[in-house]
């Protein structure tokens, strides 16, 4: 097996971006083909890696159980009295990250497909898209905290421009809000990273290290260091480790997002162009969930267990609150944005349950939401492309005008509201089951949280079906009259080609969840054990 | 013996006349004369005080020195006045105000 597959996967878009920078700006169509080719190659590569991935390798804390590892010393700097600075290029994959790499590749292809009609400065757009692609891949692959942080911050930059330049009417406001909000979280994260750096040493070299896996092992902490488990330092009255956990959690929770740190999301989603909405909902929200599992839970398992109850509460609040606010929306895209808040609440609830069912369900839910929210935003984009309107009340009886589109919408809506046979069902059900099970297994979450969470399933049916009823059923009546009827052509072959695989995957995962569970089981078990036995 | 005071009074008178000439005359030449008068007043004082230096005659030496200097200065000053006249067609100091701010 080629040991550098992962590195190739991560940096392939960068090569494509370089290539694009040499293509003269007059060759507009060439950019999208290069991008599409890169996306497809990545999809094939990540699919192959997914297939090759050995499901019994748990990873999580054990470096040797990671797969497709590349570990190269990157920065070595003698800092005098502060010791040796040790930053590695260290990437690898375990059951927690493998599904996300594949998801990223898939959603990127979809996003590139959705970008087909971009007219405004195509070159810049696709180069930024490729950089974003690389950064996201890197985040999911990085095992060195410094490297992780670089990729994490690198994601923001292209997104800022992609929203701020190619977005809708209030794009600047949305882009700045998104940028500052996320930066707010990650700046404090940097403090914790530095704190961890000075607390942890590499057992082989004795130097301080950014290696995440070393950070997960309590034995590697310098005695009496700030974040050392044994020392039990306190900062402003709380345990330093708990504080570190909270800071990292807030950084990732903004991405997830949780209520009340979610308001960047509706603005960013609504103002972003369709492909970027797809990427935001499909991948970026998952970075938050992935970060919570990979970093918050793995490095601070003790603090994670302490705060699991609160995490569960936040999850439940997000589920119910997001669903209720979605119910009141008049803008279709905004409604879907809030439904994302609600659906990602399930992730938090599942993770907080600290049971294998809940955690696996949460990862599954993230995968599922990746496909389905991407599909949802794509569908909204299709409508918006045609008439430049998204107000739910401006449409009626679309089923008679665009039957194929309506079929897609109905399937996606039902899949999102948890119809059995689609992936969201498995994700949500196992999150709820895991939350129920928590009281028996570890007593962390009370059962009312599971029950309250299941209210979200009810409410999601309410807002999706209501929207379906208002926009698609009944006698056709459009705000734009005849003109709209003419421009509302049914789904084109390109759009069908994009929708079918996504819904197909959601269906495949819903019918045969083992496709995902088999790959993540070992890692989930190891993670839950790490947190619970701590 | 004429007391010192008389010398000083004459010197002061001379100085005052010179000062008046310098400040009030409308002709540069006469201003120069006023300066000469003031120098002479100083020389007179030097000579008068020279009475108290009977060994080195410092006062008189200085007086001679000052006379020579004054003569040199007059030569230069007259040259300047001549040039000023050439340039301004006037020797009235009131007309020469190029140094004004």
């Amino acid at each position: 097996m080629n040991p550098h597959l992962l590195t190739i996967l991560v940096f392939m878009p960068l090569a494509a971006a370089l290539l694009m920078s040499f293509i003269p700006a007059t060759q507009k169509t060439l950019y999208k083909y290069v991008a599409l080719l890169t996306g497809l190659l990545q999809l094939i590569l990540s699919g192959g890696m997914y297939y090759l991935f050995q499901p019994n390798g748990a990873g999580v804390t054990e470096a040797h159980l990671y797969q497709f590892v590349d570990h190269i010393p990157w920065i070595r700097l003698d800092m005098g009295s502060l010791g040796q600075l040790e930053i590695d290029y260290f990437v690898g994959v375990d059951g927690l990250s493998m599904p996300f790499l594949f998801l990223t590749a898939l959603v990127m292809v979809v996003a590139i497909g959705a970008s087909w009609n971009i007219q405004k400065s195509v070159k810049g757009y696709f180069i930024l898209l490729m950089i974003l692609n690389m950064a996201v891949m890197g985040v999911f692959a990085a095992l060195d905290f410094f490297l992780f942080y670089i990729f994490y911050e690198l994601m923001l930059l292209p997104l800022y421009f992609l929203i701020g330049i190619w977005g809708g009417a209030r794009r600047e406001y949305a882009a700045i809000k998104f940028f500052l909000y996320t930066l707010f979280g990650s700046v404090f994260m940097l403090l914790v990273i530095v704190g961890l750096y000075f607390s942890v040493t590499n057992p082989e070299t004795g130097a301080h290290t950014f290696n995440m896996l070393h950070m997960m092992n309590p034995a590697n902490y310098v005695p009496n260091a700030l974040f050392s488990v044994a020392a039990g330092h306190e900062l402003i009255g709380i345990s330093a480790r708990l504080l570190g956990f909270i800071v990292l959690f807030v950084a990732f929770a903004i991405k997830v997002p949780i209520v009340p740190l979610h308001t960047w999301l509706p603005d960013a989603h609504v103002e972003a162009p369709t492909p970027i909405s797809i990427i935001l909902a499909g991948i970026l929200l998952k970075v938050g969930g992935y970060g919570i599992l990979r970093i918050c839970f793995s490095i601070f398992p003790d603090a994670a267990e302490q705060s699991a109850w609160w995490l569960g509460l936040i999850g439940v609040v997000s589920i119910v609150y997001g669903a209720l606010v979605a119910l009141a929306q008049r803008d279709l895209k905004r409604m879907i944005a809030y439904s994302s808040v609600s659906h990602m609440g399930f992730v938090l609830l599942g993770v907080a349950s600290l049971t294998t069912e809940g955690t696996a369900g949460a990862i599954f839910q993230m995968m599922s939401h990746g496909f389905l929210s991407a599909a949802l935003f794509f569908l909204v984009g299709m409508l918006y492309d045609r008439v430049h309107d998204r107000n739910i009340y401006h449409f009626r009886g679309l089923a008679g005008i665009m039957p194929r589109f309506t079929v897609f919408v109905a399937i996606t809506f039902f899949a999102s509201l948890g119809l059995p046979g689609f992936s969201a069902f498995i994700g949500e059900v196992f999150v709820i089951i895991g939350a129920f099970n928590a009281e028996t297994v570890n007593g962390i979450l009370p059962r009312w949280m599971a029950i309250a969470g299941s209210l979200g399933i009810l409410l999601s049916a309410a807002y999706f079906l209501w929207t379906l009823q208002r926009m698609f059923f009944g006698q056709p009546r459009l705000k734009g009259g005849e003109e709209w009827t003419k421009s509302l052509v049914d789904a084109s072959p390109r759009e069908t080609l994009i929708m079918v695989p996504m819904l197909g995957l959601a269906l495949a995962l819903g019918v045969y969840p083992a496709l995902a569970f088999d790959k993540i089981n070992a890692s989930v078990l190891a993670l839950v054990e790490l947190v619970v036995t701590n | 013996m004429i007391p010192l005071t008389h010398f000083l009074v004459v010197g002061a008178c001379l100085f005052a006349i010179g000062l008046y000439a310098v400040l009030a005359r409308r002709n540069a030449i006469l201003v120069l004369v006023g300066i000469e008068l003031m120098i002479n007043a100083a020389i007179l004082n030097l000579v008068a005080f020279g009475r108290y230096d009977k060994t080195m005659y410092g006062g008189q030496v200085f007086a001679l020195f000052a006379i020579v200097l004054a003569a040199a200065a007059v030569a230069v000053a007259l040259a300047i006045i001549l040039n000023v006249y050439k340039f301004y067609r006037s020797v009235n100091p009131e007309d020469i105000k190029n140094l004004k701010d």
Partner: protein
Amino acid sequence: MPTTALTYPLLAALSAVLLPFIGFLLSAALGKHARNGAISISAISLSLLAACYAFAQVWNQAPVHIQWHWFTIGEQAFHVGLLLDNMAVLMLVLVCVIALPVHIYSAAYMKGDPGIHRYWTYLSLFCFAMLGLVVADNLLLMYICWELVGFASYLLIGFWFTRDSAVQANKKAFIVNRIGDIGFLIGIGIVYSHLGTLDTGTLISTPETLPAPWLTVAGLAFFLGAMAKSAQFPLHVWLPDAMEGPTSVSSLIHAATMVAAGVFLLARLFPVFNETVLLVIATTGAVTAFVAAYFALTQYDIKKILAFSTISQLGFMMVGIGIGMYPVALFHLVTHAFFKCLLFLCAGAIIHEMQHVKETHALDIDPQDIRNMGGLRKHMPLTFATMLIASLALAGFPFTGGYLSKDALLVHTFEWAALQSGAAKLIPYVLVIVSMLTSFYILRLLANVFFGSLSNPLAKNKTHIHEAPMTMLIPMLFLAACSLFPLFSVNPLNDGHVWLMQGLTTTVSTLPPLPLLHLVIPLLTTGATCMVAILAWHWYVNGKYPLKTNGLLYRLSQHQGYLDVLYNVAIVRPIFRLSHLLLWVDYHVVDGTVNGLAALGRSLAATAAWIDQRLVDGLVRLVGKIAWGLGHIFRRLQTGGVQRYFATLFLVILVILLYHIVVLL
């Protein structure tokens, strides 16, 4: 123990389930090219054959159980499997037996509808899900099928999606069912967390593994699921609205099979329910039976009457479960499935004809309103005959299947009530009253539709009303035959000989029998039925209707207890208000805080900028200003006049001298 060997009965059951699914896929793939329903009809016919084979092999034999590994979460394996026992094969056959006539009927009933290809697709999907539900061996799989039948029902209720009332009805149906689904899900969660498996067999053999309070909660949760699906009060509101779907759909889904799924679930999980839960079930059932019968009394829409009748009968079945006699409940389920399905098919035939009349004469009438009908007996004699049989079965008249099951149910309820104390003793009496109400409303329907004469607009136009076509009549005749006693028992008057109950009773503790009741109850109900029939005849056929239509009780019944209004005011609108409030909070408080923080940041920056410009830079500029000002003052001395310079010089020297003199002195 579950096997992995696929024996013939299992294979038959599996193909019975999967054939409609293949039918669904094919119809969906072919779309408009498959309009005649041949695929769906042949699929369900083959299913029926397979189901009959499975039934023959399994009935009264040892249950067969097969499971395959599906997926693993952590170390917990989940399976898909089939569990074939008496209950499962009975339901399997029942669903197929009902579905096939309905399919055939639909071919004629739905003919010419532009969306008929969708109809077949949805119908096959429903059959697949329903058949899957009855043979599923674990709760997760049951839940999946449970939701899928709800989904198929959603699609079929909203089949005519351009009608607003239809799409509102299907949304309502799905959401109300979702409430029940949450109950089911909560039940699943509780069972899983205490039992570690979702296998139905394990659950019903060891329900005591669950701690007592959680057992009650789980029981109530499952019952909540059943309440929504089986339209129990107060979650029954979706079923009358669901009549917006095609009548053939109403007959299959909303009368015979899907709505009975709740009863089936409770029967399947029967050992899970403890005394408390059973009492709740019995009470809810009795209340539902009464309330629905009461609402049925004054409805004018023929399908609404039948819908409330269905709800009422489902209440009976719930009482059957609640008193611990689930075989009786299932028996009533089976008989009810036949006669209620038939009632709907007859109603469909009538509506079809009325619709036809309406279209040919361009009349402005509601084809479902019984006030517009009348005297149809002469025009549609076969329809009348079959509907009469079904109505008598519903009313519990001797020689019908309905008589056997209702009689058994009533008798057992009396036996059960003898052991109870308090208000529970009233339940059998409530059921007797409901039986009388049932007779009344169904005879009211018959009298209005088949007797008397056609209403004015129709009579004036000399309309020709025909009998339904044979493709519709044959299924109706078949179901009529099934509604009679011979299918169930050789003895038309004694439920003790019903093979169906004998096959199911094995595991149930019997109640102490009260033999006298077997004589009294049938006499009582039959007598009451006759009396009520006479009353209805007198009122409706002879036109001697004595009641005022604006009385409170009448209006309460007519408007279905104003429950929809109540729900709208008490639940739907508060939720909307809450959601709008939260939206406001989200915009103004949560996002307001964010924007406020941003504004705060901006104003801090503005303050800093002001300070920087005015104070810090101001000091620097002040120094310059002072220098400049001084210079301005001193420039006055710069006159250019040499003499003035001298004067100044002397003055200054003078001042210095004076200063020295003053200081030195």
